[in-house]
């Protein structure tokens, strides 16, 4: 044992080296069996759980994929999924029984917020002046109508009174003034505001600000007002915050009998306000019309395209008259709306018609022309058998015998290639210049405003070269161009079968309407039998003209043609006058004559080979342009054609004419 020396192979037994903490921990643990066992089982269990979850996930995903594929169609139609997403704008019928409304009125900005959502905001300069009115559904808080009445300008307060009177009782009314709303706020309007419980409204002064929340027929819920301190300044901006208690759905709705029509009515009336008696609880206006059927209706299967934009109250008026016309086929009507506007679609759904919305392309008049093109192409796609289409706009009243008129004349469009269209509108048919609803003319213009388009013309000629979206052209001006019209004519009635009532529009305003559209003659006689329709064919018309001219009494050309005394005080006679017309495009005298007769003078309409036909003092009055018109041969040699000189050009004379 003395000789025992430590083996050099073995490390000397010395102070223990610092062991890594891992090893320490490991050995420590290793010595505790229970803990070790426990950890191991835990790890294994964890692994098992993970694996199971993964497998389940894979199976679920696979099942979901195979379900979504349905009948082995590889492409996913995501449009379908989008279509199913109903934009739920309605408030849930949950425990919300109060609406939180904020109304702001100031010189340059107005806004209204309902439960945090801004439903109106206008801070654009130079527009939106006056009283903004919002109507909310008292059960859901949904915005039913939004209007602005520029009560700084005349007559707007009358419109506001009309509108407010039509709102159903119980609706929540919100009013706010932008800039100025008192200058033409007359007594009737003020009395109405007083009846709503407003204190400040009836006392609204120059440039005051005013915010109001109340109920139609019920109490005021909140009002704020700030007087303008001086003529040159505005009232302080006011911000009104109120809580509006919501009523139950039953209280908000009327109790009409449960029919399909009333279900449509209920859907409409709970979404939209401002349509008056159609939503009246006691005596609602009918929404279904049973016009007399038209015997031997030749236009029963002609599709009707209503070209609409966002003027739902116009559309409503127009559809009422259209559906009341004798011989209408509602299932052939399609309303094309230029844009995804809800209210026009609601109106279309109210009448149970088909509505198609179009994504707007381009701007201004190009937008309108693209909308026409899409609508016409769609019409012929949806009705591939149709040889014609009737084209109407949303701002027209339709005569009760509109379809009867078309039924009697459509064969002309089929048989006579020299015809471009049949239109219901006589450009020169004013109350004092149109007399005979049974009379038809051929004219070298395309009036539009309720017309029939031949499919072959559209498909072969117009559609392929329709103006592209960047061309800012009016579609009707383009159609009237000689490259498109190619010398063809349209058939029009003496007394128009459509009435243009639109005052607001891209090319319209109040003054234009007053001057050129208000006094247009409109036929209200049902079942008119058109006279001698076949004499409107090309050669037959010439025979008819020659007959008329031969019978016509020549007027005294020394008198002033603008005076009423130019024609004798007779009725039912035919007179002819000759005016100077040097060339085919010389319309100097005609334009002056049209001006003084107060008919359409912005461009030349209604002529047929240099001949115009109208009525004066209930006599048929023919005007022949000499020598350009081929009918000049009928002029007696002793007569000098009348020449009317245009007045000398003043400073700031109007430029190019605006057309509808």
């Amino acid at each position: 044992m003395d000789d025992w020396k430590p083996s050099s192979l073995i490390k000397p037994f010395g102070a223990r080296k610092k062991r890594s903490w891992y090893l320490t921990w490991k050995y420590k643990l290793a010595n505790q069996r229970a803990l070790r066992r426990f950890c191991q089982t835990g790890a294994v269990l964890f692994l098992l759980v993970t694996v199971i979850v993964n497998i389940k996930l894979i199976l679920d995903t696979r099942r979901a994929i195979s379900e979504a594929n349905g009948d082995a169609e590889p492409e996913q139609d995501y449009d379908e999924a989008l279509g199913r997403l109903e934009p739920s704008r309605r408030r849930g019928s949950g425990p919300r029984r109060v609406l939180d409304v904020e109304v702001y009125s100031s010189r340059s900005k107005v806004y209204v917020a309902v439960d945090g959502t801004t439903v109106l905001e206008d801070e654009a300069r130079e527009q939106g002046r006056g009283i903004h009115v919002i109507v909310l559904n008292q059960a859901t808080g949904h915005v039913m109508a939004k209007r602005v009445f520029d009560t700084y300008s005349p007559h707007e307060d009358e419109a506001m009174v009309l509108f407010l009177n039509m709102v159903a009782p119980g609706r929540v009314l919100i009013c706010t003034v932008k800039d100025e709303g008192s200058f033409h706020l007359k007594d009737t309007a003020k009395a109405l505001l007083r009846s709503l419980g407003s204190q400040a409204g009836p006392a609204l002064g120059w440039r005051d600000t005013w915010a109001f929340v109340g109920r139609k027929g019920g109490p005021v819920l909140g009002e704020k007002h700030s007087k303008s301190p001086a003529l040159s300044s505005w009232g302080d901006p006011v911000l009104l915050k109120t809580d509006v208690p919501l009523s139950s759905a039953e209280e908000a709705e009327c109790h009409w009998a449960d029919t399909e029509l009333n279900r449509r009515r209920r859907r409409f009336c709970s979404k939209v306000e401002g349509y008056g008696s159609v939503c009246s609880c006691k005596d609602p206006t009918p929404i279904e019309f049973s016009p007399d059927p038209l015997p031997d209706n030749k236009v029963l299967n002609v599709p009707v395209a209503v070209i609409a934009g966002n003027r739902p109250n116009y559309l409503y008026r127009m559809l009422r008259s259209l559906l009341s016309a004798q011989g209408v086929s509602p299932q052939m009507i399609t309303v094309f709306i230029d844009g995804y506007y809800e209210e026009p679609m609601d109106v279309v759904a109210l009448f149970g018609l088909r509505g198609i919305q179009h994504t707007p392309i381009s701007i201004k008049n190009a937008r309108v022309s693209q909308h026409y093109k899409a609508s016409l192409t769609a019409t012929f796609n949806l009705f591939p058998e149709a040889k014609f289409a009737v084209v109407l706009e949303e701002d027209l009243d339709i005569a009760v015998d509109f379809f009867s008129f078309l039924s009697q004349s459509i064969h002309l469009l089929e048989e006579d290639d020299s015809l471009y269209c049949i239109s219901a509108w006589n450009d020169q048919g004013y109350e004092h210049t149109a007399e005979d609803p049974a009379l038809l003319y051929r004219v070298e213009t395309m009036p539009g405003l309720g017309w029939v388009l031949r499919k072959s013309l559209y498909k072969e000629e117009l559609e392929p070269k329709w103006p592209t979206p960047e061309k800012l052209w009016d579609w009707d001006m383009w159609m009237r161009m000689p490259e498109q019209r190619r010398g063809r004519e349209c058939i029009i009635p003496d007394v128009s079968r459509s009435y243009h009532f639109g005052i607001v529009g891209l090319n319209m305003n109040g003054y234009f309407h007053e001057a050129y559209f208000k006094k247009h003659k409109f036929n209200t006689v049902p079942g008119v039998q058109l006279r001698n329709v076949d004499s409107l064919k090309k050669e037959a018309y010439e025979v008819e003209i020659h007959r008329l001219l031969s019978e016509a009494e020549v007027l005294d050309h020394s008198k002033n043609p603008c005076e009423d005394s130019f024609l004798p005080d007779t009725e039912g006679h035919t007179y002819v006058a000759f005016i100077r017309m040097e060339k085919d495009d010389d319309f100097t005298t005609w334009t002056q004559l049209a001006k003084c007769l107060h008919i359409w003078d912005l461009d030349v309409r209604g002529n047929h080979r240099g001949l115009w036909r109208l009525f004066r003092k209930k006599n048929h009055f023919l005007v022949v342009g000499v020598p350009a018109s081929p009918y000049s041969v009928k002029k007696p040699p002793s007569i000098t054609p009348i020449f009317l000189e245009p007045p000398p050009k003043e400073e700031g004379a109007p430029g190019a004419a605006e057309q509808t």
Partner: protein
Amino acid sequence: MGFQCLKIESKDPRLDGIDSLSGTEIPLHYICRLANHAIHLVVFHERSGNYLWHGHLRLKGHMDRKFVPFRKLRFGRYPGAFDRPELQQITVDGLEVFIPKDPVHFLEEIPHSRFIECRYKEARAFLQQYLDDNTVEAMAFRKNAKELLQLAAKTLKKLGVRFWLSSGTCLGWYRQCNIIPYSKDVDLGIFIQDYKSDIISAFQDVGLPLKHKFGKVEDSLELSFQGKDDIKLDIFFFYEETDHMWNGGTQAKTGKKFKYLFPKFTLCWTEFVDMKIHVPCETIEYIEANYGKTWKIPVKTWDWKRSPPNVQPNGIWPISEWDEVIQLY
């Protein structure tokens, strides 16, 4: 009456061709079941081109997949197109029903009725990128080409010869849903087994004289007819091999033969310039074979001898045969 019914609706495809119109959905199929029986009502819609179209039976997410054994239904796997049949009224089991006047023809159409829609969305995208040619010449060409195509379709239909849009005309349909204005001619394809010797005289009779005839029925047959205003109607005959199809071309000057290879394809109906007409169902493969992967890019100068990626030289006609296989008029 105790029936449980399922209604399948979808967007109206007739509005697809126009920039983003959206309207109400149209009904496509109704399936009503009672106990172990089911009635499948297929709704046919009229479309431009004088044909009836029915839609695809696709079940939406929430619908019951076990409602009826859908895979057994005769209609609905694909959208279908049918000639508009005239109907007659007959009495079956005491019930008055309408059936087609020619029931055999209608039943024969069913297996070959598969319809594919033109790719309007992609066409719009294409036209946005490469603006459409709106010159007078382009429009005149389109008008003449359409008339020529309609005349050819009518003639071939009367003969009972199946044909489809090929080459440039097919590319026009696939790429822009319209006739390519600079394509210069109308191209059709016919399976060689459908060849009938009266094709040439039939075209002659409707005012389309034969301009040239290349090849022979056994090999590389190709016909070309002269239409109005310098437009040609080219008919390529397709030959079937075990795993591919091909059609032949001939260079008149040198007698060289060419072969254009295509993967096998079946025929589907589609709507093109207001007509119901055939195109290859496997269109993208057909187009890519003929025009390569860059078919989306318009190429105004196309050399049929060299440009197609699927062209192969195929030898040369022996001079002794030239009289037969190269006939120019």
